[in-house]
């Protein structure tokens, strides 16, 4: 009965997916519950901020520069058709601050820092380091997971802001230095059109939410990974795939809520 088997497989996968979402949610609340311990020993968060945030700087800066330069080129080609080249600064800045900065930085963050978190925690589990910690009466969620969560949540908006800032300079370099768009109108129109609350703050909120989503997914996948080489590699892959999808879906929801066509 192939049809019955197919239904059974689909049903099993659906139940498994719901179960995992439930476990991940419970895991998220556990992290919040044990976060007080992390804040009391702030050096743990600082250490994780270095490996999560500082070590992601190069990829964020380089990617931001190139995305900004591409935006400058494409934007100029489009705006030229309407004789609005002077609005290039606005287009680059709004594109980066509202969308590309938070989204692309979060995708890069998921690939670099998220996958590293999953692999590290998965390997700690496989080599019994987490069991050893539990046997020493030290709660691994409080000692290992919560500091990484807060490091991810704090570093994501900062990385997204840096991505946007470097991207604006990339757009400036291509638009003003290379193509010859007027420098005064590039900066002044940008300054006039970009609103702090409407554009910048909304971008920061987006990257904060993305940071939470990516970090929870990465930590949960690592903590839940089967303690084998195959299990850890599978968990790392799932982190990147699920984080990327979560970022794009959340981006739509947040954009609809923030801008919503009004």
């Amino acid at each position, binding site marked *: 009965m192939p049809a019955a088997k197919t239904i059974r497989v689909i049903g099993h996968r659906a139940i498994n997916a719901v179960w995992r979402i439930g476990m991940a949610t419970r895991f998220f609340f556990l992290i919040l519950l044990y976060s007080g311990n992390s804040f009391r020993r702030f050096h743990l968060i600082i250490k994780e901020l270095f490996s999560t945030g500082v070590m992601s700087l190069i990829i964020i800066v380089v990617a931001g520069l190139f995305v900004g330069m591409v935006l400058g080129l494409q934007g100029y080609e489009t705006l030229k058709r309407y004789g609005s080249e002077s609005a290039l600064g606005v287009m680059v800045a709004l594109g980066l601050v509202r969308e590309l900065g938070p989204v692309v930085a979060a995708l890069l963050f998921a690939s670099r820092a998220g996958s590293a978190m999953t692999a590290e925690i998965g390997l*700690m589990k496989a*080599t*019994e*380091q987490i*069991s*050893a*910690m*539990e*046997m*020493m*009466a*030290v*709660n691994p969620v409080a*000692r290992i997971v919560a500091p990484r969560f807060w490091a991810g949540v704090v570093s994501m908006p900062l990385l997204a802001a840096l991505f946007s800032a470097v991207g604006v300079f990339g757009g400036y370099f291509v638009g003003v230095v290379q193509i010859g768009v007027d420098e005064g109108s590039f900066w002044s129109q940008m300054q006039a059109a970009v609103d702090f609350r409407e554009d910048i703050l909304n971008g920061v909120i987006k990257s904060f939410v993305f940071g939470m989503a990516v970090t929870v997914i990465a930590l949960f996948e690592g903590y839940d990974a089967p303690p084998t080489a195959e299990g850890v590699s599978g968990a790392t892959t799932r982190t990147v795939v699920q984080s990327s999808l979560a970022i794009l879906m959340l981006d739509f929801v947040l954009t609809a809520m923030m801008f919503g066509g009004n």
Partner: protein
Amino acid sequence: MTFPKGKLIAIMGLSGCGKTTLLRHIGGALKPTSGHIKVDGQILHELDQDGLYAMRRKMGMLFQFGALFTDMSVYDNVAFQMREHTDLPEELIHDLVMMKLNAVGLRGTHDLMPSELSGGMARRVALARTVALDPMLIMYDEPFAGLDPISLTVVGDLIRRLNDALGATSVVVTHDIQESLKIVDYVYFMANGVIEAEGTPDEIRASDREFVHQFVHGEMDGPVPFHYPGGEYRQDLNLRA
């Protein structure tokens, strides 16, 4: 099973017979479906998380491959529990860590990372970490696995000496019959989750029970068959009768 205070007990048996599962029950990582485990007068599965963690502070466990924290130096690994569970000043922690490392002969490795240690050295550092807070119950999960003969003797000797020096109770889960019989006070043999035989090392050596005899002498065939149960051999080779 009973583990009297101050004694060093070995639990032996074939792979998959439930030895490590038993250790995990003693450590409170698993809850028994029937029966109970009583440590220091308290039934483990009745304790809440705070009670269990309080109990675990009186226990130490050496994992099969040490389970050292790979992002910390040898020094920080040994100091980990002291920093987590006590308010001792760093100077005192330093002296205690050095004493623990000296006890396992590895004081000179305090600056090294776990990746720079050999398997035997990692096991000894893990032993120093296990006894960092002078536990009353020490559990060893396959402490001799993968060690060269010298490291094996060193680790075996350390297990005996540390148990006697701390006045602790030690439970060693192992396959290594010869090394274990040299150091332990009492042995339990397990098979399929039940106690198959028990006794002092001398009683075990002299035992005429088939299972114990096969295990002690490492014989290929006996109550534990060489062949895993399977179908008809001729049938697997597609031969006709």
